[in-house]
């Protein structure tokens, strides 16, 4: 359904995309993960026909995003990471306006809009002014807006950003429903676990390049054994850092306040041995614990490690 071949985008001297290639099948939910500035939004803007690539090709449903933007727009529903709403417009009128932009007849619009509001659980806000809605509600309304013309492909750029945990859960439920409806979805996030539950395939992008792609299981398999050890020191951080860095199962060590964060790839036995080593060296530790690492950060570390 989506095909990207050797896509490059340059903003002045900065290269945002460095020959990105990927393929997303019909009905697949593709999660795009990567840090800020990695190239996720640039890729999505190109797919949404809002940005011209410097070179390379991108197709949606077989249509070239540069040469056939009108055909592509009929197929896609796009939701940017930040979007505004109009003042003085109710939720129903907001959807009606966008539906009319797709040449949907007034009769059809009367049928579709209540269904969409129902889908995003906003039926009760039908006559509420859009600017009075909460951020989570606006985000759901934005999702309904991207669905007014029943597109085959949904391009969702960071749909959960800025939402509170409850709103995130609600959004996740709607996305699951859309997956069940057979939509091809490309969704980006900073947080891998957020996508893991609903994505068939995950692509990790870093510095404009797709560094890894695979099913959620494949990604998790690669991450097996990776954890972040948090060592809170009272003093002698340099000695502790040196000791940790020398350990062959520690990939890297970072200092965060008075806590040392070590990316550890060893077994539980090796972890116990490391703790004993630190204690034997007489280093003043206040605590030694396994931290909850940001999964995609760890994954990026793995990929970088594999690369080097």
């Amino acid at each position, binding site marked *: 359904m989506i095909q990207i071949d050797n896509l490059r985008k340059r903003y002045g001297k900065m290269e945002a995309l460095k020959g990105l290639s990927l393929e997303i099948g019909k009905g697949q939910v593709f999660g795009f993960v990567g840090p800020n500035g990695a190239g996720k939004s640039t890729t999505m803007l190109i797919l949404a026909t*809002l940005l011209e690539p410097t070179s390379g090709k991108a197709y949606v449903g077989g249509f070239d*995003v540069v040469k056939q933007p009108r055909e592509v727009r009929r197929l896609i529903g*796009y939701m940017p990471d*930040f*979007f505004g*709403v*109009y003042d003085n*417009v109710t939720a129903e*009128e907001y959807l009606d306006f966008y539906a009319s*932009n797709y040449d949907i007849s007034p009769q059809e619009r009367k049928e579709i809009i209540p269904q969409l509001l129902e889908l995003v659980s906003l039926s009760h806000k039908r006559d509420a002014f859009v600017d009075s809605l909460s951020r989570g509600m606006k985000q759901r309304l934005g999702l309904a807006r991207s669905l007014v013309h029943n597109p085959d492909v949904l391009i969702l750029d960071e749909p959960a950003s800025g939402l509170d945990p409850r709103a995130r859960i609600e959004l996740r439920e709607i996305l699951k429903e859309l997956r069940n409806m057979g939509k091809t979805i490309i969704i980006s996030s900073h947080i891998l676990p957020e996508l893991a539950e609903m994505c068939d395939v995950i692509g990790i992008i870093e510095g404009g390049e797709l560094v890894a792609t695979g099913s959620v299981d494949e990604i998790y398999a690669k991450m097996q054994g990776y954890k972040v050890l948090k060592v809170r020191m009272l003093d002698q951080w340099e000695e502790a850092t040196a000791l940790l860095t020398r350990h062959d199962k520690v990939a890297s060590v970072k200092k965060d306040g008075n806590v040392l964060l070590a990316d550890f790839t060893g077994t539980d036995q090796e972890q116990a041995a490391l703790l004993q080593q630190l204690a034997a060296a007489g280093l003043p530790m206040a605590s030694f614990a396994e931290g909850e690492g940001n999964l995609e950060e760890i994954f990026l570390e793995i990929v970088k490690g594999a690369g080097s």
Partner: protein
Amino acid sequence: MNVIRKLRNPVLINEWKVRMRSNRAAWVTTLYLLVLGGIVLTFIFLRINFENRYDPDISREIFMFLSILQFGMICLFTPGLTAGVISGERERQTLSVLLTTNLTATKLILGKWLASLSFMIYLVMASLPLYGIVFLYGGISPIQLVQVFGLYLVTMLGLGSVGVLFSTLMKRTGVSIVLTYAFLFAYTAGTFFLYVVAQEMIDYQRRMANLHAMQPNPVWPEWLLSLNPLAVGLHVFEEGVFNRFHDLKAAGNLPFWMIDPYWLYILFFVLLTIGSLELSIYLIKPVRKRLWKR
């Protein structure tokens, strides 16, 4: 049915709906007519000076006064109304979403342009009864009234299209508004300044060449001045600098190449409108054909 559907502009309909929903539109109309009506009625009252008779010349004066006042208001308000229509969408972060819909760039630009001007057109139309009062006393031809409204319309459409162009080019609405006002000022002052310079140059050449006073001056400086809104505004009332045109017309000796400044102005503003809108339509497309190769 299909044609109507194709001509239907959702942006225009939505803007109308939203704009006319609040009480503001009614208040602005009331205030506008009160101010304009107040000035006109005061003027009439002062000029009649408690006399029972009414001089058509006074009526003509009031008509001129009202027309120039309204023309000034159009020039003052149009840039402010139009110069934020696209940059405002960009600032509100609604433009990218609009551009991914099936809405064509042409419909988007035309919808925004007409929506922003329609309120001004509505205000001008609402002022027609005021002209009716003045018209009652005579001294003005219906042609002049039509010409004045034609002048209003093309000036509004032209200035509005320039506002839309700056709004498409600039990211910030403030910058766009300032540039549109700067354009209006530079254009009005510029055409007048160029006319004065051209006349001075011609006079100098005539003096140097010792030309006979009866030898006619070239007409092109007047063509240049025909592009000036104020000069054309006065020309409608047979006032201002186009004396040669009026004299020749009155004598019935008007040569074919001496085009009425009013029509030159209309033609230029129609071209300005089309050019500005075409450029805006081209520029708003996120992915567009290059006019030249890099």
